[in-house]
C-alpha cells in the first residue's frame, strides 16, 4: 500500500455513463491482486472530502486502468478530467480474489454492472478459462464483453429490459448452468449487494464455494475508521470485519446476510 500521485494517460467515455481511466501509477501497478482497489482523491472536489474507491480493472507495467460509472459528484468531476492531470491514489488496497489454478474448481464469474471491472484481472490471471455471467439493466451497462471473450472466456449476458442477451436477472442463467453442473465449480461475484446475496444463496443451494466482492461505503480505505464493516460469522457468533481491509472480497458462506449490510 502506497500513496502515489498518478498522471492521467487517458479518460474516455466507453458506453453510456461508463468511462475508462488509464493512469500512470508505477508504484501501484506491479502489486495489484485481482479484486483489489485504489482509493482516489479527486482534486476538484473541494468540499466533498472523501476519496472514492474503484476496483483496478487492468494493469500494465506502469499503468492501471479503471472502469467507472458516472453516478454522483465525484464521478462527474472525474469524468471532466483530462490527460496529464494528476490524481492522488492510495493502493493497492483490500483483500482480493483467490486466483483459480489448473487444479482448482472451474470458475464461474458473476458480474452486475461495473462488477465486470473487478473481475477482469481475475479472468486474465486465472489459468482456467471459465464462464462469465454478465448482468445489467440494459445493453449499455454490459461492459467489456469483448475483452473477456478475447481472453478465451465464455460470456453469457442477461439484461433486465431484454435489450441484450437473456431477459431478466443474471442469477437466472447462472442457476441454469448450476443445474446443468455444479460439482467442481466455484463462483466469483461482484455487483450490487442484492445480487451478491442472491449469488450466495445459489452457492449454498448448490453446495459450491463463492467469493463475493462487496460494495460497501468506505471512508479511510485503510482499516482505521471502521466505516465499512460487514457482519462475518465466527466460531462463537459473529463479528464486524472491514470491507476495505479483510474485504472487499469475502467468502460468501461467512457473511451474515441476515444482520443486514
Amino acid at each position: 500500500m502506497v500513496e502515489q500521485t498518478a498522471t492521467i494517460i487517458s479518460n474516455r467515455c466507453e458506453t453510456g455513463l461508463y468511462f475508462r481511466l488509464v493512469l500512470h501509477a508505477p508504484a501501484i501497478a506491479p502489486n495489484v491482486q485481482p479484486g483489489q482497489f485504489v482509493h482516489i482523491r479527486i482534486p476538484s472536489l473541494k468540499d466533498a472530502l472523501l476519496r472514492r474507491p474503484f476496483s483496478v480493472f487492468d494493469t500494465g507495467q506502469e499503468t492501471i486502468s479503471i472502469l467507472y460509472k458516472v453516478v454522483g459528484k465525484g464521478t462527474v468531476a472525474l469524468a471532466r478530467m483530462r490527460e496529464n492531470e494528476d490524481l492522488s491514489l492510495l493502493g493497492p488496497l483490500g483483500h482480493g480474489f483467490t486466483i483459480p489454478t489448473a487444479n482448482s474448481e472451474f470458475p464461474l464469474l458473476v458480474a452486475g454492472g461495473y462488477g465486470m471491472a473487478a473481475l477482469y484481472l481475475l479472468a486474465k490471471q486465472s489459468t482456467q478459462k471459465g464462464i462469465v455471467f454478465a448482468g445489467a439493466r440494459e445493453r449499455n451497462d454490459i461492459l467489456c464483453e469483448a475483452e473477456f471473450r478475447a481472453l478465451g472466456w465464455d460470456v453469457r449476458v442477461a439484461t433486465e429490459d431484454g435489450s441484450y442477451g437473456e431477459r431478466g436477472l443474471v442469477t437466472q442463467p447462472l442457476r441454469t448452468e448450476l443445474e446443468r453442473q455444479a460439482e467442481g465449480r466455484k463462483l466469483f461475484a461482484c455487483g450490487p449487494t442484492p445480487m451478491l446475496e442472491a449469488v450466495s444463496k445459489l452457492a449454498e443451494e448448490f453446495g459450491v464455494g463463492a467469493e463475493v466482492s462487496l460494495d460497501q461505503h468506505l471512508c479511510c480505505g485503510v482499516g482505521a475508521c471502521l466505516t465499512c464493516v460487514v457482519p462475518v460469522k465466527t466460531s462463537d457468533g459473529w463479528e464486524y470485519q472491514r470491507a476495505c481491509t479483510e474485504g472487499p472480497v469475502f467468502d460468501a458462506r461467512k457473511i451474515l446476510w441476515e444482520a443486514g449490510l
Partner: protein
Amino acid sequence: MNLSVKIGRLTLQNPVTVASGTFGYGAEYARLIDLNQLGAVTVKGIRVCPVRGNPTPRTFEVTSGLLNAIGLQGPGVDAFIKKYWPFLRELKVPTIVNIWGTTVDEYVEVTRRLSELEGLGAIEINVSCPNVNGDGTAFGTDLNLLGEIVSACRRATSLTLITKLSPNVSSIVPYAKAAEQAGSDALSIMNSYPAMAIDPETRRPRLGNVTGGLSGPCIKPIAVKLVFDAARAVRIPIIGIGGIQDASDALEFIIAGATAVAIGTANFYEPQTALRVVEGLREYLKNHQIEDINDLIGSVRIERKSSC
C-alpha cells in the same frame, strides 16, 4: 528552533498528534507515514470490554465535513494490550490512549489496566458518551459527573491525564475549569458536534444510528472559539482539535491558546496531513523569526475598536 511542547508530564517533540478514532491504532497508517515524526500517536477509544459498534451506514460525507456514528467499536482493553500495544510500545513517540465507559467504575478500571503498561504516554478521557446509570446524558455535559469521572481516574493513575471535552455545552468555561480542578493535566477540545442528515428520497436518516457527530473543516471555527474561551479560563495545556487540514489551520488553534493540535478527519483523505502540518509549523517559525513555538501559544492580538 524549538517545536517541542509539554502536555502534563509528557514532552512531545512537536505539537502535532492525531485525533482519536481517525487513526486506528497507528499500525493502519504505518506504511503510509512515518509515525515517529509525529508528536504523539493517539488511538481509538478503548472500553473495558469489546464493543461491536453501530449498524451501518456509519459515516456520511457532508459539505466540508463528515458525519459519523461508529459507535466506539473496539476490542476492549485486554485485546488492545495484547494486539496493539506491542507495536505502539516500540515507537519512539508516545502513545495517548483514549478511553471511555458507561459508568464511572468502567473508566477507573480501564485507567488502572492501562497504568500497568510501561512506557504509555498518556490517557485521554472521552466524556462524550452516555452515562447508563443516570438518565443517559453524556458525562461531558454534566458538570458534577465530569468532575467525578476525572477525579476518579486521577486517583487511579499517575500518568498524564487529558480530558477531552464535548462541544455540546452552552459555555465551555465551567467544564474546562471542572476538569482542571478534578486533576486533569490537560484538555482536548473538541470532540465531534452532534448532527444529523436525512435522505429526502427515502426520508431515512443517512446514518444507521440516526444521529452522529460532525467533524472536518466545517467545524474548525467552532473549535477555535472553544479553545480560545477555555485557554483564558484554565492554566493547563489544551490540545486543539477540529477540522485541521494544514499548518495555517493548526496555527489558528495555537494562537487561540492551544499548546498542541490533533489532526482528525483529514487523515482519512490526506494521510500525510499531520506530517505536512509539522513541516508547515517549522516554516512559519522560520519565516516569522520565532525561536520557540511556545511563544506563539495564546498570542492572539485583540484590538477592539470602539463601536460608537
